[in-house]
């Protein structure tokens, strides 16, 4: 039924439909027709989501690692090619992006009332940029999408954001740009090493290419000291994006100031680009450096988990609380990935999706109440459950999903991550577990303060409950939370191959490292999981 997708450049179509939509809005629709623009843009996002669905069905779980490949020459003189392809990890992230895309468009209908034409143009451009990042199989192409995407996000925060929007927008842009230009140097180092020599390091000469697969192939043979340099260059780019402690300071600003849709996309998709970068590039291409820097990575992730949770607990602003909870949750993802074993990687990747769903939903829910009351201060609320029972229910489900209650998605992710972490180093797991407890504390406390108790503030009387549009965009998230929580097998099934692949890459490098440098005892010890 879905065989046709193999005959069309389906990835390019999914990637560029939003761009085409943006161009149509830009050139053919007038600023007077706000309603039409809104509906058209949302329609484009929805069509894009429908187009991306066949990927899930047509993806061959037993087939090659990367599928739906597209390949064409682009800049011959330096070996840049236009290469698209996705593996199981990218598949999930692409679907998450298109789904959250539709949801964020729908949520904007009532939130955005100024300069709507520009708003939807930027939102559509953002979709194309993000999808391209997950689909690109050529490092140059990847970098192009990675940077292109910053521009619309800058405008979304800067034009439609809150009171400190300008500061937050430029801070977001500068932070991520500094990270990505250093990553660019790492890419260039790989590129030249692949051709035979870089500075003092010599290797096998290969034809010039930016192919990510080729870099995967030579990964294990790159000298460990060079790997560390490249790893650090990548690290700055990805860690700022994740964000890992101590590179997280742009995030609360950006999240708090961004409009709801911007926050949803930031938390749901943009942060995942950082973790995706680690699992796609850093781990499999630079396994020796990964092993060498593992203690540092783990330490930063664990600090992030606990620190993010503690700071979240102290917040008075709901949006800020959710923002800091992201720092903590992403720390979880990172510790799962750096456990470098089956459960850890599986859980880490799944938790990316979970976090996208539950934190995305939390931002949407905060947006819903903000539109009604124009305040996000927790102290302004209390006793809402009687006024808005439906809202309270959805909020409760998402809260529970976020803190990892069994039968909901967060549980599956966190449990597998903790299993992996315990297997690697027992106290990583322990610290992670403390993070979960803290997470439950701040989320439940938030819930208690907002929904329970007497309705003291008269302004909260008679607030309208969720309307049909709001239910419409929250429902799929709630359904997915249950689906992943009750029956995660299909998700783990698509992750099987890529996770195994990353583990094999790390093992391969470890084998060569043992053969080449018998003195590297601590590295081996870590690799063995001690």
């Amino acid at each position: 039924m879905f065989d046709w997708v193999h005959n069309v450049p389906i990835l390019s179509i999914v990637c560029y439909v939003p761009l085409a939509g943006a161009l149509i809005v830009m050139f053919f629709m007038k600023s007077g027709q706000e309603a039409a623009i809104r509906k058209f843009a949302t329609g484009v996002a929805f069509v894009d989501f429908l187009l991306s669905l066949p990927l899930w069905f047509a993806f061959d779980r037993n087939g090659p690692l990367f599928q739906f490949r597209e390949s064409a020459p682009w800049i011959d003189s330096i070996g840049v090619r236009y290469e698209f392809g996705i593996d199981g990890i990218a598949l999930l992230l692409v679907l998450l992006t298109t789904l959250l895309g539709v949801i964020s468009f729908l949520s904007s209908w009532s939130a955005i009332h100024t300069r709507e034409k520009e708003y939807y143009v930027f939102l559509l451009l953002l979709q194309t940029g993000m999808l391209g990042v997950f689909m690109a199989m050529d490092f140059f192409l990847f970098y192009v999408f990675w940077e292109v995407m910053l521009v619309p996000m800058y405008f979304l925060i800067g034009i439609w954001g809150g009171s400190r929007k300008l500061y937050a927008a430029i801070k977001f842009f500068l932070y991520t740009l500094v990270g990505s230009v250093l990553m660019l140097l790492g890419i260039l180092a790989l590129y030249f090493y692949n051709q035979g020599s870089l500075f003092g390091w010599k290797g096998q000469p290969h034809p010039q290419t930016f192919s990510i697969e080729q870099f995967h192939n030579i990964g294990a043979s790159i000298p460990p000291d060079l790997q560390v340099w490249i790893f650090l260059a990548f690290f700055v780019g990805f860690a700022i994006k994740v964000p890992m402690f101590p590179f997280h300071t742009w995030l609360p600003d950006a999240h708090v100031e961004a409009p709801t849709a911007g926050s949803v996309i930031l938390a749901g998709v943009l942060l995942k680009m950082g973790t995706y970068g680690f699992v796609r590039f850093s781990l499999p291409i630079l396994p020796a450096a990964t092993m060498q820097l593992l203690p540092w990575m783990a330490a930063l992730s664990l600090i992030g988990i606990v620190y993010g949770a503690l700071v979240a607990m102290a917040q008075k602003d709901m949006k800020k609380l959710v923002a800091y909870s992201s720092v903590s949750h992403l720390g979880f993802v990172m510790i799962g990935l750096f456990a470098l074993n089956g459960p850890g990687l599986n859980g880490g990747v799944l938790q990316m999706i979970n976090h996208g769903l539950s934190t995305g939903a939390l931002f949407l829910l905060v947006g819903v109440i903000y539109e009604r009351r124009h305040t996000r201060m927790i102290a302004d609320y209390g006793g809402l459950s009687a006024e808005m029972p439906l809202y309270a229910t959805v909020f409760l489900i998402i809260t529970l999903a976020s803190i990892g209650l069994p039968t909901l998605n967060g549980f599956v992710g966190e449990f597998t991550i903790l299993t992996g972490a315990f297997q690697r180093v027992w106290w990583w797991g322990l610290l992670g577990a403390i993070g979960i407890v803290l997470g439950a504390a701040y989320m439940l406390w938030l819930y208690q303060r907002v929904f329970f108790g007497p309705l003291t503030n008269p302004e909260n009387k008679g607030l309208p409950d969720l309307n049909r549009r709001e239910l419409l965009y929250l429902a799929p998230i709630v359904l997915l939370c249950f689906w992943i929580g009750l029956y995660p097998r299909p998700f783990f099934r698509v992750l099987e191959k890529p996770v195994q692949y990353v583990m094999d890459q790390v093992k391969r490098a470890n084998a060569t490292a043992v053969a080449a440098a018998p003195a590297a005892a601590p590295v081996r010890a870590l690799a063995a999981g001690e």
Partner: protein
Amino acid sequence: MPGVQDYQYLAPEILLGAAGLLLLLGGAIGRGMGNRESALVSIVSLALTAGLVLRVYSVVEAGKAAHTFPDPPLILGGSFMLDGFSFFWKLLVLVATALVVLLSIRFLDEGGYRASDYYSLLLLATSGMLFMASGYTLLTIWISLETMALASYILAGYFKREVRSNEAALKYFILGALSSGILLYGISLLYGATGTVQLAELSVRLGATQGNPLVPLGWLLLAAGLFFKVAAVPFHIWTPDVYVGAPTPVTAWLAVASKAASFAILLRIFYEGLGSVSVEWQTVVAVISAATMIWGNLAALTQENVKRLLAYSSIAHAGYVLIGVLAVSQVGLWSVLFYLLAYSFITLGAFGTVILLERREYAGETCADYAGLARRSPFLAGMMLLFMLALTGIPPTGGFVGKFYLFAAAVQGRWAWLAVIGVITSAISLYYYFRIVYYMYMGDSDQTTPVPLQAPALVGVIAFCAFATLALGVIPGPFIDFAKRSMLPLP
């Protein structure tokens, strides 16, 4: 006398010079030629010159293939080079000047100055640039450089009733004359040490000279003069004042055509004349490049005047280009060519937008004057946004691809520290480029009158530059091939 028939290959330069003189004459006779007519004559003669350049190129290539033409294609007793490298710069300079002519028409109308002299000087200077691209002895190069420079001094002060324009011209003249003197002094020292000014000859003899203190002193002075022309730190002090004071089309022309021609001779002299001492000047250029990138970008951070901001930006970009120069590699060389190509269109587009807004005072010269432009003219704001992104080096623009190659050349050439400075400073540059963007899209303004797009020539140039900026970023392949066909031999 070296073959009189060789002069036929100078047809483009001669034609352009003649057109310049014709305009001068046309302005003096009777009531003088009008603005439109002079511009038309300029455009036509620039187009004819470009045609002749291409014609000479094909004749030379055919001659080389049939062995009826010397290879390397040196004529006039080894003083005039007709290689692919020279044609690249000639075409670039001609296109840039033609675009500047189109940018100037309205501007001169409103300034109320006589136009024919202006275009005459522009063409004469451009003719000097063509000679610069082909010059193959230090003296030919120096004389053609002076041809360009003298005309530029006058052009910078062309708005003679404006104090700032006068100041610009005077500063430019005094400092320019000083640098020309230094350059000439360097040439004389090198001549004293080696007894030649012909570049190929010079390189050979320099390789044989050991321990003569005149040699390093000579090329250092020569280099200092060249750094002045490309506006590299610390020889950049004239740039901001001249860029702000000069009539804006002249500023654009100085930032693009003059800079490109200066880089042409810088490459020619460093690669061909000083090729045998390349290891020594590499370090000097590296230090200058780092200083230029750092200071150009830092100083731009605090600028409120758009022209001054673009002046510092053009200084910073000279620093990036120098990375490609000092890499002394294939990649480095064609990345310089590609980068200047991209930079020219981006900068002309940006200045074109400034000019359009300056007219009839839709916006002044400060960044704050751009407040709310996105609502008054979505087209112009969008164009300016594109140019600012390209100057920062964000894909998918030519600016990104150009910077990518330059940094690639640095990494390949083991100049990692320069590459790190380069990428960090370009990230910093986002801050000031985006100050303009910030005002355009997020600034509040009580001015709400839409800006009409009623100057077809100006709008056309801006749109063309935007198109070129995107084309260079999305399909850089053909342009890279063009640059690759225009290479110099590496030292």
